[in-house]
């Protein structure tokens, strides 16, 4: 194996470039947000859920197996620790059509159930999310007691990265009754749908039920 200083220096330089390139790709991926979607301002919480509507409601659209959403869950746990009386929470977990219990036994499900003032529901086929305009796991929507949307975005700085973020700062400001400049933030997470046509099927089924066909 060659061992001259020149060869070694060149080797180190090449290696360093490769490493930096790798890091660049990795960081590029991690810091590229998902589709933030278009919020449906008229979206309401489905009836029959035990969500306290007298105060603000924070809705999370999440993919139960998205690793990036764990950071969002962790941030929510911290947020709830500080402002649990300021809002109630609804977690809408995507679930594929015909998905079994294994989709509801993930760690995210367990953590959501463990949170206070929180209702976790499954969203087969991502209908509710699509109705609300959410397309990326980790998408949060804050609705005030009047049903008006106060915030739309994510609370992580990049994919799967915990820590302070603009979204988190904005929610804290809102819960403290302050105004915030960041009512729209990027969302880092897995897509809630795979564009496999499932959603269209569900929509068609729903239409048939409504029309009696």
């Amino acid at each position, binding site marked *: 194996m060659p061992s001259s200083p020149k060869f070694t220096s060149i080797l180190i330089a090449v290696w360093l470039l490769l490493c930096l390139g*790798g890091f660049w790709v990795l*960081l590029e991926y991690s810091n590229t947000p998902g589709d933030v979607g278009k919020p449906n301002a008229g979206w309401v919480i489905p009836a029959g859920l035990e969500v306290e509507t007298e105060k603000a409601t924070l809705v999370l659209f999440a993919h139960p197996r998205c690793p*990036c959403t764990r950071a969002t869950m962790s941030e929510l746990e911290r947020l709830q620790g500080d402002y649990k009386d300021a809002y109630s929470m609804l977690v809408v977990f995507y679930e594929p059509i015909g998905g079994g219990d294994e989709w509801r036994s993930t760690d995210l499900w367990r953590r959501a159930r463990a949170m206070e003032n929180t209702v976790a529901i499954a969203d087969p086929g991502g209908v509710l999310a699509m109705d609300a305009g959410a397309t990326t796991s980790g998408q949060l929507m804050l609705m005030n007691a009047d049903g008006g949307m106060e915030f739309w975005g994510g609370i992580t*700085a990049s994919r799967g*990265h915990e820590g302070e973020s603009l979204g988190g700062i904005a929610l804290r400001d809102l819960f403290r009754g302050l105004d915030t400049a960041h009512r729209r933030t990027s969302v880092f997470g897995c897509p809630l*749908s795979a564009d496999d046509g499932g959603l269209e099927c569900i929509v068609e089924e729903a239409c048939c039920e409504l029309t009696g066909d």
Partner: protein
Amino acid sequence: MNSQVIDRTNEILLESRDRLNRRTDAMFGVLFVVQLIGCIAAALIFTPKTWAGAQGSTHIHVWAGLGLGTLLCAMPMYLILVHRGQVLTRYGIVIAQMLYSSLLIHLTGGRIETHFHLFGSLAFIAFYRDWKLLIPATIIISADHLLRAIYWPESIFGVLSASPWRALEHAGWVVFEDVFLITGCIFSAQEMQKISESQAKLEFVNTETEQIVAERTKELRSRGEELARSEERFRLAVQGSQHGLWDWDLSKEKMYYAPRWKELVGCQEHEISDSMDEWFSRIVSEQLTRFYKDLHMLRNGVIKTLDTELEMMHADGTTRWMLCRATAERDEEGNATRLAGSMADISELKIAQERLRQLAHHDRLTGLPNRGVFVSQVDKELSVAKKNPGYRFAVLFGDFDGFKIINDSLGHAFGDSMLIHAGEMLLSHVKDTDVVSRFGGDEFAVLLRDVEDDEAERIAQRLVDSFRDPYEINEHEISSTLSLGLVVNGGEHGSADDLLRDADAAMYQAKNAGKSRWQLFDESMHQAAMKRLDIERELRRATASEETMNREFKLLYQPIVDLDCGQIAGFEALIRWEHPEMGLIEPDQFVGIAEDIGAIIPIGEWTLRVACEQVVEWRKEFGDVQRLYMNVNLSRRQLVHTELISLLEQTIKETGVRPEDLKLEITETTVMDARVDAVKIMRRIRALGIELAIDDFGTGHSSLSCLRDFPIQVLKIDRAFMLNMSNHREFCALIHAIVTLAHNFNLQVVAEGIEDQDQISQLQTMDCSYAQGYFFSRPVDAAAATLLLRDGLSYSRLAA
């Protein structure tokens, strides 16, 4: 600190750093492998898959963990394997490690806990104890954050743009740790420097110490070897000397006996305890008290060393003589703490000493005391006699008559046996307190102590009588009588030598008186002895120069007559000494003494020269018509004198004498005493043309065979035969036999001592041709002899 220490300090420091770097490189090697596994595991645990609805796919983190993790690990591993310990390797490791921290933080979703890896990495880098390595590490962290701040501001905790103070705090902690670690590295480097200095100094001191130790060790080894050699020499010396060592510890009253000591007393190792009694009990009782005293004196410092001989009992029941040597070791107060020494068996030495003493004081053959012992005993008796008036003792001095004949005829071994027997015989006739001594040859002396009246005479007679009868030795019956001289002393003599001299004189007198008898010394004998001394002295004076010899010595000439024609055939030259004070001294009074003291040599030379000059003179006067020769006597000492032949040659040359006119007379005894040499010399004399005559034939003890063997031409029959010729018929027969025998050997016969006509007549009937004696002429001086020659005196005229 000298330059050597500084240089060595730097060396040690470099060695230490190299060792540290290599070790830390190896640790990072292991760490990188663990981190690679950790990266992959973190990716699989935290982000195994990414989802799009119901569709899952491998998360990019997994590929990043595998790919980027391996890439980060590859380079430092290569450097560690190929360039371990080098600067480049360390920097490569630092870069890789910091990137690893970034990767891990990223793969774990930026967990705050994972950030500890970054701080841990910095601490790990500090293992190199090189603060410079922390600089690139910090730069990498800073660059990472700077790039993120530029490209992904929100990823830096999302606060960079919102809160610069937080960013500053964030950097502050990193700087804090850097400062902490850099300080630690500097301190550690300083500590290493100090340790290296200490080690260098220690090594320097150690080297010096080792050198000193090595030199000391070498010296000690050398001394040890010398000591070993010395011990070996001592051991060999002790072995060689056969000494048995012992060591008496006085404080413990314990004795150490070396194995050799136990051997000396015939005991085995286990048979001797450590008690001093083991020794004391073996010392013969007569010497034990003396040994106690010796030890006591040694112990008390009266004597410094002990050197004594002890007689000790051996295990085999015999006694052995031991030489015991000892010395004492003392404390500061001078008290003996131990005695140590050696013991050696000197029994053989004692025996040898006794033998030497015996040899020095005793005759080897008979075992009797020798002359030295005898003289000392006589001296003691003289002292006693001088202190005690009335005390008398006697000295007998004697020899055996005819011992020489026995010795020569029966051999020396037989003669020795006879002497042993004689010694025993003498001892058997004296008291135990008396002393019998052999002086040498057949001479014995007897000291009779404390004699009364005629006791000495009676013992002398008894001794002489005991040898009168023949006795048997070794199956041979021999008869050898004893002649004794006796001196009875009451302290009159001055010394033992005087006594012996007188006893000798008395014995001489006894022999002269007929042998086999004893003779009491009287003053006349002493006078004779004194006279002999006078003659000795005067002989030395008279022969000191030719002048004194010419003045005091003269030659007389006795004619030898041809019985056939009655004419003088020749003369025998006879010397006379006319002493200026003593008067005329006959040859029998001084020739023997001259022989003893060596004066016979100059006398003989003088005689030969004068006799030759005389015959030459007569030849000149009477011409060659008359037969005339000169007989000159030759003593034994002259015969064996190395210069005899050259003397004869010189005399013939100087005087001009014809060799055939010269005859040399030698007695039987002279020839027999040095038979071999004599025959050789006689032949050389004959070779000069000089004739030889045997003088006094018949009185000695030569065998008749000598007539055949000796180169002689003339036989002169001793006068003793002529004296008895008239009275004893057997003598006539004997003379007749000698004459007949001589004629058979073609020898001329001269009869000596002719005093009357009857003798001449009888000799003529025996066909004896020549005669010599007073009947013809007494020895006369040269003038008278010349007249005899001139007058032509004939036998018939003389007879008338």
